């Protein structure tokens, strides 16, 4: 039995985004979207409220479109489990500017806290490594998190981190839901007038 993590998801995500610079952020549906909003609403957050299993691939498309910008995907363990093939696709494409952080509570928090495979021993860091990610790390402590955050922002990608957090539910924090509003805000901040062409 691996030791339990004591990391709090809200504090983890706040730390991941504290020095985001001009990074573009994609958040997986459910708690990671709420966590990113709770860390501070930002025009360059693409909050996903659906498309489960697609967050990492949204990040890939964005990273290819904006090769000079860092693209940070923050998603859940259930979300990444639904798109495991994308780990292979991303490793093969090897975008240098893409980093993925999985906020892993080992459970499906939105649907009644059923245990996910990650909570039953499945090692998604091992899967990312086997797929060919140059950098794949499991993080369980504050000290390890602090070290990893610089990789998340600066290491040549693709970078993968599985951050084990407690399964304690965080207070409600809900960002804008309207997909077109999220799109326009993000694209206008990134592309200026070209966003509406």
């Amino acid at each position, binding site marked *: 039995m691996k030791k339990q993590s004591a990391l709090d998801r809200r504090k983890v995500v706040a730390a991941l985004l504290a020095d985001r610079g001009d990074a573009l952020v994609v958040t997986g549906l459910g708690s990671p979207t709420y966590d990113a909003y709770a860390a501070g609403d930002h025009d360059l957050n693409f909050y996903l409220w659906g*498309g489960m299993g697609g967050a990492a691939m949204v990040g890939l498309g964005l990273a290819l479109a904006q090769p000079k910008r860092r693209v940070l995907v923050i998603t859940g363990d259930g979300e990444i489990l639904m798109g495991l093939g994308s780990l292979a696709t991303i490793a093969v*494409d090897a975008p240098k500017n893409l980093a993925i952080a999985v906020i892993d509570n080992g459970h499906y928090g939105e649907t009644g806290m059923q245990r996910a495979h990650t909570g039953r021993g499945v090692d998604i860091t091992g899967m990312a490594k086997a797929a060919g990610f140059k950098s794949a790390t499991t993080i369980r402590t504050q000290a390890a998190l602090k070290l990893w955050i610089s990789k998340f922002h600066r290491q040549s990608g693709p970078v993968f981190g599985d951050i084990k957090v407690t399964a304690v539910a965080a207070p409600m924090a809900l960002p804008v839901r309207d997909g077109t509003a999220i*799109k326009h805000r993000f694209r206008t901040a990134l592309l200026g007038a070209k966003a509406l062409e």
Partner: protein
Amino acid sequence: MQTDQQTKATVWPDQIFDVLKEAGVTQVAYVPDAGHSKLISRCEAEKSMHTVSLTTEEEGVAMLAGSWMGGAKGVLLMQSSGVGNCINMLSMFQECRLPLLMLVTMRGVWGEFNPWQVPMGGSTASALSGAGVIVHSAERAEDIRDTVHASALLAFQTYRPVAVLIQQSVIGFKNWSK
């Protein structure tokens, strides 16, 4: 007839390539398909295009949402059997009003050999329509260029997902004899 079909087969993928290049497509996501093999090769050889091989079609749908968010245009090349894999991911395009151009080679409809292709082939158009995708179909090789061109314009000018179904009457029969 054989020669005629072979000639058509060599021309329409090049026409699609020209349309995509003219439309400013820079990202090409694909699940390999025999019907698209020539187009995939052309895109791989083109410096202005970045090709991404997928493990499943829905990855490409999600990827192209990110492409557009980042200011790039993309295309998804796939076979009809992969349409079912895409359905939930397509909800992003309807909800966010994102453009998507899908070029779908058909199986299971016309002169098919493999009975297992028939169920998905028969429901491809209705599955796409049900997921909010505008569906165009090209049944003759000479219709391909205009249909793909019109679909690219519709997708990127009105911010909507559009699929072109390239029918087996264009692709020709798959040879099972060797």
